[in-house]
């Protein structure tokens, strides 16, 4: 493939928990180049010690998210053309998560919150029982279906100001997951989940400013999911269930 003559000016944050700094690289621009291509080029050609994550390279695994010119994005499916400011790219580790090294963040807290929000499935049947018949058109299944394609990339979590202000807040991804499960008729722990999403750091902290929904790379809408949680919470409170 023919190389374009333009060079990109790419600033990459490097460091660890103790601190770090931006380093600037000149990277050849290529057609259809993604942010992940740029990072990989830097690591292969100039900075072998550069740390970053990726696995699938096709937007499935959710491991490659980083701040690209200030916005949380999946690196593997972000064309630099969509992200460039002039010919400048600034890459930083995801916001709201502790950094391990360079562009790799510690995701433990993020996943821990999925558990705190009861974002796990509690089965009510085992494999010997017949498969549950659930109409895809039923309202609850339709509501769940809207949120199940999450790839756990934490872009929403990085975009959320409430997480920045209150680091304990469960955050959009965990609450979105809880909402999909709350709509799963096969699940057997709804009361527990209802209480979990209403804990001090739960859904009521969300200000509905929709940063999460604006930046979810797979176009999920955690704000709508959290609004759903708030409605069901109100109903549960009125009925004395929580």
């Amino acid at each position, binding site marked *: 493939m023919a190389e374009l003559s333009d060079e990109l000016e790419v600033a990459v944050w490097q460091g660890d928990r103790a601190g770090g700094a931006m380093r600037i690289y000149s990277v050849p621009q290529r057609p259809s180049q993604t942010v992940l291509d740029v990072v990989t080029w830097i690591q292969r050609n100039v900075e072998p010690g550069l740390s970053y994550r990726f696995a699938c390279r096709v937007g499935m695994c959710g491991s490659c998210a980083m701040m690209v*010119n*200030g*916005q949380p994005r999946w690196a593997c499916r972000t064309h630099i053309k969509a992200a460039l400011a002039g010919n400048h790219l600034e890459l930083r580790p995801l916001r709201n998560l502790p950094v391990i090294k360079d562009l790799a963040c510690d995701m433990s807290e993020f996943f821990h919150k999925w558990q705190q929000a009861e974002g796990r499935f509690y089965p009510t049947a085992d494999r010997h029982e017949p498969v549950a018949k659930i109409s895809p058109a039923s309202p609850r299944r339709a509501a769940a279906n809207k949120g199940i394609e999450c790839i756990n990339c934490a872009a929403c979590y990085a*975009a959320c*100001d409430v997480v920045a202000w209150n680091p304990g807040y469960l955050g959009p991804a965990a609450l979105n997951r809880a909402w999909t499960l709350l709509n799963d008729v096969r699940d057997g722990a709804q009361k527990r989940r209802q209480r979990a999403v209403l804990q001090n750091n739960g859904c009521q902290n969300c*200000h*509905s*400013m*929709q*940063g999460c929904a*604006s*930046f979810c790379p797979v176009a999920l*809408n955690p*704000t*709508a999911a959290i*609004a759903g949680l*708030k*409605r069901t919470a109100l109903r549960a409170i009125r009925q004395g269930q929580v």
Partner: protein
Amino acid sequence: MMRPHHKSSLWLGFLLHRLSGLILALFLPLHFYVLGLALVDTAALDGYLILTRNPVVKFMECTLVFLLAVHLFGGLRVLALEFLPWHSRQKTLVAASSAAALFLACLFLLRAF
């Protein structure tokens, strides 16, 4: 640093709603104090009422009406967002609620003079 997502009208709608709430919370005690004067000290109340003829004060009152309207319509927007089925045109709703607030404030300004 101005974060890119803070340039979104959705976020600005949130900010406006928040600030209007804060300013109103500061102003309303004063407002009720002045109203309360009608019961205890009418002379002092008249003093305040004369003050409201000052154009600068009229502009300030108009700003307060704007903030009140912003907070009212912003609140209705958030209630609709959270309690009605999801509406895909959230940015339009922010624009509409802000426009309604501005309209009310202008109406007040026209009547004030």
